[in-house]
């Protein structure tokens, strides 16, 4: 396990005393919806769920792509995808689409005008390195953002994609340019301690600039949903579920041992099979994924209730405690007094 994930596991929740139900705006359950204001527009984009999917696509998923999109749509989870990957999906199954463009590629009008969220990736796709575009190097990101915003029609959240561990100045520049969101991704396959620290730092900077609710969309190779929820408490507004969904999809795609194949049925019962002209069901179900996507918001809601948070905005690092010195050092989350005496 990478150090960043180990440190996440060394954080625990501070439970509130059992003093009765938490007051929420919507009644019994804590709200996990978040509104994303759009600069220069009266419209807001609602993130129905604090999760998203970033790296899954039709090429690697094959037949699982269509049902995955249907499930994501049902659960209000946006997907980072080019428009081409969704053209064959029925309209009722298309989830909120998040698109983007690396700065060294031409911006595409169709991508821009049809996306629900759009990000400008400060990534040189040719060299595979994080880098600001030369044309906006001299603090012209606001001009590019304004142009992208104008092209999208003005009602689409426009953000910037940065690596976790980027320089503080880069975050400052994005905040100055009035981005609608910042997308943060790990530079490498592992989630390092510096990545965790960077997330905390980014949230602190946004708060300092009076943008405490700035959406930070974090892509990290997390191992379970509990780690995703700790990232939410540490400052993320939404977390990618790709690393959790991949094994679940693989499990769903494995052949069911109890299912009788067409050939087997014909061999066993030739007369019945031919008379019924039976064929294998075409609809592909992702039962494991469905279960996971249904459980995730439920467990988050329970977590919010247990820490006394009425919504995601009040689910902050103050709901956490460190159980080790190094977790405290990296995240700034304090240890409890009695934790100091326990060996780590």
């Amino acid at each position, binding site marked *: 396990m990478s150090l960043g994930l180990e440190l996440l596991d060394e954080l625990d929740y501070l439970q509130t005393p059992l003093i009765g139900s938490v007051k929420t705006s919507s009644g019994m359950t804590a709200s996990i919806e978040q509104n994303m204001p759009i600069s*220069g527009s009266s419209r807001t984009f609602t993130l129905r769920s604090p999760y998203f999917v970033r790296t899954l696509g039709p090429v690697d998923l094959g037949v699982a792509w269509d049902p995955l999109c249907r499930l994501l749509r049902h659960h209000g989870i946006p997907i980072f995808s080019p428009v081409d990957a969704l053209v064959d999906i029925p309209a009722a199954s298309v989830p909120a689409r998040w698109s983007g463009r690396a700065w*060294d*590629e*031409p*911006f*595409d*009008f169709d991508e*821009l*005008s049809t996306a629900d969220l759009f990000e400008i990736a400060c990534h040189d796709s*040719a060299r595979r390195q994080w880098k600001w575009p*030369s*044309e906006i190097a001299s603090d*012209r990101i*606001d*001009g*590019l953002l*304004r*142009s*992208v*915003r*104008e*092209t*999208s*029609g*003005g009602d689409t959240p426009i953000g910037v994609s940065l690596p976790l561990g980027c320089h503080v100045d880069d975050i400052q520049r994005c905040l100055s340019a009035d981005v609608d969101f910042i997308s943060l991704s790990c530079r490498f396959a592992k989630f390092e301690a510096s990545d965790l620290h960077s997330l905390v730092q980014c949230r602190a900077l946004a708060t300092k600039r009076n943008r405490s609710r700035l959406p930070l969309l974090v892509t990290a190779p997390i191992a379970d949903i509990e780690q995703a929820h700790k990232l939410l408490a540490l400052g993320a507004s939404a977390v990618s579920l790709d690393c959790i969904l991949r094994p679940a999809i693989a499990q769903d795609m494995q052949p069911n041992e109890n299912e009788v194949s067409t050939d087997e049925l014909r061999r066993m019962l030739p007369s019945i099979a031919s008379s019924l002209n039976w064929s294998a069901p075409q609809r592909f179900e992702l039962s494991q994924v469905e279960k996971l996507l249904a459980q995730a918001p439920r467990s988050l809601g329970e977590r919010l209730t247990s820490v006394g948070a009425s919504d995601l905005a009040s689910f902050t690092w103050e709901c956490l405690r460190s159980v080790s010195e190094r977790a405290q050092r990296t995240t700034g989350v304090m240890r409890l007094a009695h934790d100091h005496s326990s060996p780590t």
Partner: protein
Amino acid sequence: MSSDAPIRWNCSDWTPAELAKRLRELDSDAAVELAGHVPQIGQAGLFSGLSQRLTIEVSGDVGDFLFFVGAEASIDVRGNAGDCVGHSMRSGRVTVAGNAARSLATCATGGFVAVLGQAAERCGERLSGADVFVRSRVGAMAGYAMRGGTLVLGNGCGEKLGQEMTGGVIYVRGEVASKATNLRADRMKAADSLRLSLLLAEVGIKSSGSDFQVFRARGAAA
């Protein structure tokens, strides 16, 4: 082109969004004249995403990112232009009578951009299919990381011409301060001559292009 008289707009009280909205409401083939020296025109992102067949004349200077991801329209700027004119432009035409700043026609995939004055550094950066003409001198690193299209430089260029260029063709008349090692000087072929003379004719210059040098990326097909 419209045969009707152009619509004259004094947009000094309009926000850029309002200007964009009014332009979108116009019929195709309309001709519009915008009064110059209004702050909105100098702001970044003028005519972003515009994709109607409009003919627009701007009498003042324009800001950065003019005609970003634009298509179809024909824009004539009588003053100077900021950075990244025609960034990701798809089709249409932009003419700047004055000078253009950095990164002219960055990532432009189609259409024609002409600057009758000078252009600063990185002109035609990552050009991906559009045709670009600069009549006066251009700065360093022209054609940087160019992938396709045509860059015509009418009065020499600065250092590092064609650095990291992988496709397209650059025609230069006059002095080349230095060229990148990946760039090779090529022979002017009949197809080059025809292409060049047609592009020059677009800006009213009658020439066979015989006094131009031709540059292509090493390994790129003619």
